[in-house]
């Protein structure tokens, strides 16, 4: 009679035996229990029995793991051998997994990096951008005066910093170079909570008026220009001819506000900087106090804005303040672009998986005889299922590894889709998260699409499988395979329609007339440093020297300078005062201001509609003149003669001397304000120096790249310390406008191509298999008088039925997806008939191609051979 303790220990031991695989436990479990019972009987005393049980526990854990490992190893060995025995099947299956998962890993890693992953700052969810809101402009930079008032009143932020992008000439470190940086308030780094890698970031004293110049370098600039000099802190560097002391270097993963930012200098505001509330130049960023919500901050800033409106009714009329999470700075277009790609990648995965499942189902049917023989020789169904699953697992893992390689290779190509607005690196890193995602997706795919065929195979295998061989397939199997092919065709149609719509949208955008000439135009930037070029006459000397020599170059028809090239800068928007009307800046009362040298319109091919262009005689001592665009005239003097009229703009009265055609100054897809062009000679000394012409544009009849060495020499001669940057053609600038679209479209076209080929192959595979299954039926039909044409039609009809079954829901889904992406379609209707009918036609052509060979095979059925075989 056993004691209760013995019973408990025995029960525990039996429970423990469940760690072994079922087959092992069923075989040896009883004997092991009886041995343990005997051992238990030989040990008396609680301590001895506990020692025995503990020993048994570790022994079972170890041996159970070993048995599992041995079984897995054996399964993997057999599976590998079996897969190597069918290299065609194996390679196809691995390729399918590689394509399906690779596309998803790449696209989802990108989307996660851009849209989900926390920004690289501590508690990034508390970082908020602060903007002014004007009529027609939902995001306008803060003026220093409003910024100062917000800081004084707001209680929602631990600190509120401000910055703006700038660039400076770095001289004395090899060739002079123009580098992009940012002017920041001294508290920016404490708002972002990122300390310097070496040295320190700015203190309050660095930002005081009259403080000596200090600079913090980016890691990249420190490495590139200073060779990673560890003793850089405390050294002096020359930026725009002014001495700055390096006080620190930021870590390599710090990018703010943009990826190109290479240095940071502190604003040293003086009282005069706070006078003009229209001087919108600061981007505000704040860190919410713990416990303060975004909504609370918004309400508080609305109240502050209302108070400022009351306090400064003239300057702040219609000015509100808005708070937006830094993470949400991403544009809707970027978000949609990535979401669209994710959807497309999922379609590819669905198609690849459906093909894989179809392939596995076909293989399971083909292997029925083999599996039946193994069953009849004593293998258990459980073992067969395990081996089939381990085959799927092997295929999945090989495909998953391929997919990861595809993703690693594809991510740099997709990195152009990472918007510049986010302070993150360009190429999404392939990290543990990516690898886990790839592994997880692989396992889900393998389990979801490997289990059903394996179960089917085990169900079909048995005596009946042995008897009938491979000549028949279950109706259920056919139905499942047909459903998979329908799903593939449907998903392909969705991709076809979306690709078609986006291609049409891209064409539409590309065919937009920018209003200026793009071919044969070379541009480069020579951003003149201040205060060296504070005087208009000094700048004019430089422009004259450069332009005179450049115009002499062979092939050059004209050249000119402008504040900033069209489509490269959205700033410089000023209110227009005509006939004493209000000077409040609203969308309907503002224009873009650009200073230009003579020759700009002929260089860029902007047509002069009436009057004249800016000339050499429009100097500072003459009345200020302006050339305006046609939309400017339509707005202020519709149906009137504009030449000779006056308007107040940028604090000065200007006389209209000419009217030119409108250009797409803000970009191909954005509406632009009317344009006002002012003479560069009438940009007063030390006034808005930021507007001094920077971009040199040259029109040449010869290939522009051949001109570059000569132009460099000319600029070097005019000022040996003047760096050159942003060398590009106007065609590049315009192409840059559609770059994201082009990349997205290319990726989608690749996805669609893969999808349609896979769907076609899937259809072909299914029909070929069905035809081979129905050989006997076809033979009898032929023997009973059916003609080959009848068989051809029968198979063709089957294919067309499948195509229609996939086409209809596919078109409906495509329409829904197109509606969701409507804002990316640039005016192309989501139900664009041409695109939908082309997609349907392509789907049907694919169907016909996929059906043709199986149908021909059905036609070639030899009834006598079939009868003889029976």
């Amino acid at each position, binding site marked *: 009679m056993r004691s209760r303790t013995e019973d408990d220990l025995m029960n525990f031991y039996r429970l423990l035996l469940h760690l072994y695989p079922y087959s*092992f436990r069923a*075989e*040896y479990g*009883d*004997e*092991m229990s*009886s*041995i*343990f019972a*005997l051992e238990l009987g030989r040990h008396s005393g609680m301590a001895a029995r506990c020692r025995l049980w503990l*020993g*048994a526990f570790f*022994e*079972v854990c*170890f*041996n*159970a793991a*070993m*048995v599992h490992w*041995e079984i897995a190893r054996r399964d993997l060995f057999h599976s590998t051998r079996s897969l190597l025995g069918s290299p065609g099947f194996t390679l196809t299956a691995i390729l399918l997994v590689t394509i399906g998962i690779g596309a998803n890993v790449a696209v989802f890693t990108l989307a996660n990096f851009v849209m989900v992953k926390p920004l690289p700052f501590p508690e990034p969810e508390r970082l908020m951008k602060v903007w002014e809101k004007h009529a027609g402009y939902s995001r306008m930079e803060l003026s220093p005066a409003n910024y100062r008032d917000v800081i004084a009143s707001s209680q929602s932020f631990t600190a509120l910093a401000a910055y703006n992008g700038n660039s400076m000439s770095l001289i004395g470190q090899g060739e002079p170079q123009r580098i992009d940086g940012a002017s920041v308030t001294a508290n920016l780094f404490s708002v972002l909570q990122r300390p310097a890698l070496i040295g320190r970031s700015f203190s309050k004293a660095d930002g005081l008026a009259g403080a000596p110049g200090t600079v913090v370098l980016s890691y990249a600039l420190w490495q590139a220009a200073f060779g990673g000099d560890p003793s850089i802190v405390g050294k002096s560097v020359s930026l725009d001819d002014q001495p700055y002391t390096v006080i620190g270097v930021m870590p390599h993963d710090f990018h703010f506000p943009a990826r190109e930012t290479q240095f940071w200098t502190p604003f040293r505001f003086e009282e005069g900087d706070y006078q003009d509330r229209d001087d919108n130049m600061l981007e505000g960023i704040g860190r919410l106090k713990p416990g303060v919500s975004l909504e609370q901050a918004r309400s508080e800033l609305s109240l502050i804005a209302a108070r400022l409106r009351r306090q400064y009714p003239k300057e702040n009329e219609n000015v509100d303040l808005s708070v937006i999470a830094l993470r949400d700075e991403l544009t809707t277009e970027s978000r949609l672009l990535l979401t669209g790609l994710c959807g497309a990648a999922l379609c590819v995965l669905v198609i690849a998986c459906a093909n894989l499942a179809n392939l596995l189902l076909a293989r399971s049917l083909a292997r029925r005889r083999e599996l039946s023989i193994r069953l009849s020789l004593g293998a258990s169904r459980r073992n067969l299922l395990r081996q089939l699953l381990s085959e799927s697992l092997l295929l999945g893992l090989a495909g998953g590894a391929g997919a990861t390689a595809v993703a690693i290779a594809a991510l740099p190509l997709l990195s152009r889709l990472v918007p510049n607005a986010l302070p993150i690196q360009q190429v999404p890193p392939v990290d543990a998260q990516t690898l886990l995602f790839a592994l997880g997706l692989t396992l889900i795919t393998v389990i979801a699409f490997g289990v059903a065929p394996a179960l089917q195979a085990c169900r079909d295998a048995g005596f009946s499988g042995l008897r009938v061989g491979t000549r028949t397939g279950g109706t259920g199997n056919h139905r499942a395979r047909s459903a998979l092919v329908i799903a593939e065709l449907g998903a392909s149609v969705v991709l076809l329609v979306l690709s078609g719509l986006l291609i049409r949208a891209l064409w539409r955008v590309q065919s937009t007339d920018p209003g200026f000439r793009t071919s044969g135009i070379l541009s480069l930037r020579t951003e003149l440093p201040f205060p060296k070029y504070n005087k208009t006459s000094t700048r004019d000397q430089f422009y004259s020297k450069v332009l005179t020599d450049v115009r002499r170059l062979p092939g050059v028809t004209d050249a000119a300078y402008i504040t900033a090239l069209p489509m490269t800068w959205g700033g410089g928007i000023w209110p227009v005062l005509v006939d004493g009307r209000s000077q409040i800046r609203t969308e309907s009362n503002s224009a873009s201001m650009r200073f230009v040298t003579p020759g700009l319109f002929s260089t860029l091919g902007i047509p002069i509609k009436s009057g004249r262009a800016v000339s050499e005689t429009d100097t500072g001592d003459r009345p200020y003149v302006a050339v305006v665009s046609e939309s400017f005239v339509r707005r202020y003097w519709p149906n009137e003669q504009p030449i000779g009229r006056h308007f107040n703009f940028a604090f000065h009265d200007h006389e209209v001397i000419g009217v030119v055609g409108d250009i797409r100054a803000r970009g191909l897809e954005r509406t632009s304000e009317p344009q006002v062009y002012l003479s560069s000679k009438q940009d007063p000394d030390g006034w808005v120096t930021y507007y001094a012409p920077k971009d040199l544009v040259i029109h040449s009849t010869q290939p522009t790249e051949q001109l570059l060495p000569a132009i460099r020499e000319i600029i070097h001669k005019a000022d040996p310390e003047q760096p050159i940057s942003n060398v590009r053609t106007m065609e590049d600038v315009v192409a840059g406008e559609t770059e994201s679209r082009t990349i997205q479209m290319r990726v989608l076209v690749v996805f669609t191509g893969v999808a349609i080929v896979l769907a076609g192959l899937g259809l072909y595979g299914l029909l070929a298999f069905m035809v081979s299954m129905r050989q006997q039926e076809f033979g009898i039909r032929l023997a009973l008088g059916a003609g080959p044409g009848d068989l051809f039609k029968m198979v063709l009809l089957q294919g067309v039925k499948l195509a229609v079954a996939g086409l209809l829901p596919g078109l409906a889904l495509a329409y829904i997806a197109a509606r969701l992406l409507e804002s990316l379609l640039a005016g192309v209707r989501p139900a664009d008939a041409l695109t939908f009918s082309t997609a349907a036609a392509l789907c049907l052509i694919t169907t016909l191609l996929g059906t043709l060979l199986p149908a021909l095979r059905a036609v070639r059925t030899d009834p006598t051979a079939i009868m003889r075989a029976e």
Partner: protein
Amino acid sequence: MADDSITSLLPLQPTTFHILLSLTDEDRHGYAIILEVARRTQGELKLSAGTLYRSIQRMLESGLIIETRNRPAPEMDDERRRYYRITPLGRAVAEAEAGRLRDLLKMARLCGVAPRTT
């Protein structure tokens, strides 16, 4: 017996060798094998049930032993027990392993690193 099928199984794991030795004189069930191995090794090797049956499973698969249906008289028997018998291949493999160990010992002796038997 084909040499290849024997040499491919060598060297034997000590547990396998001991189980084979315990079955050379008579068929035994699992617990009897544990006791016999313990007796032969003067208690130095005490096989656990898990190790024993893991080895038995492997030895059955490679044909070194078989499960026998010959059972003792019902009054001496426990129906849960299974009895195992060494096969001719198992015997040949055990002999080959013994020979291998003998050769090793000879080599060790020549090198003066093995104790001389009295």
